[in-house]
């Protein structure tokens, strides 16, 4: 265990704890946009900035993103100094210029004290805040069909060459995790479309309900070692099979001596 001070409060955390978790554990709130408990920290949104210092640094302090910075023994953390607040406001201001119409950004900016952006608003407003949760979740499940491309103002999330991504399995995890719901997809009976790629769905061989994409079945089968025939039945029909087996068992129990 190591011990550090957060806004004057001493906290003890296991070695290797992220500074962000130590701060939250101490009971202080830090606004974040790109952090997710299930994914590797990324340091993308820059909203979790805090000042850190040490007694021996004679008042000098440095600013770090707390989601990427490991908690250290003896560290003195200040989450709400004037400098930190000002820097966070710049980040929020820039985000608001990029995404002026996005409710989540408006809310976060307002919480940090920015009602309207001081920069020229984006002529092409977008809802994408470049948090990269979508690309990270795609990497995490072992698909990596999308990535962030280009730099600076031209940066965006896209499949390779803006074509239908060959590696995408159509699981929709990117669209589900997107905090601003800005990844469009369409589902209809028998097909699913995302990132410009249309997936044919596998139908339950018994009830005919479309339940997974062919690519999902292939991915899951390769990942887990089950045969692709594992996905012949949908979850409802698997439950029905279970119920029938239970019924048989209970009838067997009743007639047995």
């Amino acid at each position, binding site marked *: 265990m190591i011990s550090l001070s957060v806004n004057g409060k001493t906290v003890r955390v296991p070695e290797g704890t992220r500074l962000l978790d130590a701060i939250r554990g101490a009971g202080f709130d830090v606004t974040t946009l790109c952090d997710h408990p*299930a994914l590797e920290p990324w340091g993308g949104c820059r909203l979790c900035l805090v000042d850190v210092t040490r007694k021996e640094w004679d008042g000098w302090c440095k600013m770090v993103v707390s989601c990427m910075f490991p908690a250290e023994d003896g560290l003195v953390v200040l989450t709400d100094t004037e400098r930190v607040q000002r820097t966070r406001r710049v980040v929020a201001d820039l985000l608001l210029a990029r995404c002026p119409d996005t409710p989540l950004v408006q809310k976060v900016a307002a919480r940090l004290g920015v009602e309207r952006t001081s920069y020229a608003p984006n002529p092409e407003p977008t809802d994408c805040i470049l948090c990269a949760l979508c690309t990270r979740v795609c990497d*995490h499940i072992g698909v990596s069909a999308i990535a962030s491309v280009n730099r600076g103002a031209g940066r965006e999330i896209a499949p390779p060459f803006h074509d239908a991504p060959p590696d995408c399995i159509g699981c929709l995890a990117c669209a589900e995790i997107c905090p601003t719901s800005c990844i469009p997809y369409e589902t209809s009976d028998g097909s699913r479309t995302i990132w410009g790629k249309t997936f044919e769905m596998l139908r339950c061989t018994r009830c005919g309900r479309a339940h997974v994409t062919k690519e999902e079945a292939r991915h*899951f089968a390769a990942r887990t070692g089950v045969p692709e025939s594992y996905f012949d039945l949908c*979850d409802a029909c*698997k*439950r029905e*099979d*279970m119920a029938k087996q239970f019924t048989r068992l*209970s009838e067997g129990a009743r007639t047995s001596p």
Partner: protein
Amino acid sequence: MEKIYRVVVERCIACGKCELACAFAHGSEGKPSKTRINIFKRGPELGTPVVCFQCDDAACAAVCPTEALVRNEKTGAIEMVRERCISCRMCVAACPFGNMLWDETYHCVQKCDLCGGDPKCVPFCPTHALEYLPAGEAARKPEPLAWASPSK
């Protein structure tokens, strides 16, 4: 594990109270279709409830890429840690019994977690088809209920 969730199939009269209790308990707007326990009718007023078995070697937990499905050592149930779930639905495809349920209303996976040790369906079951018993009692073969026996 101190207590065991027991289903006595012969006692189920397919009244659907467990499904409703579950749907209400888990914020699914009380829609019986959003329940984590499902009754399959096997005749007039006879049903077979199907609910998560909390498998020892669970396919859902093994396949989850974010370790969002975690065993609660106290209740023995596999619980969903919502914050870690990325809605990839691998568990839904992986469960051999179809007991991981995708909830289109809330865009999340629903699974029975024994309500953290106080299963809400149990007190609503009028025929004791669903019981939550001390481990020692659960292993005993269920007797016909006294009030349900025709000789009494």
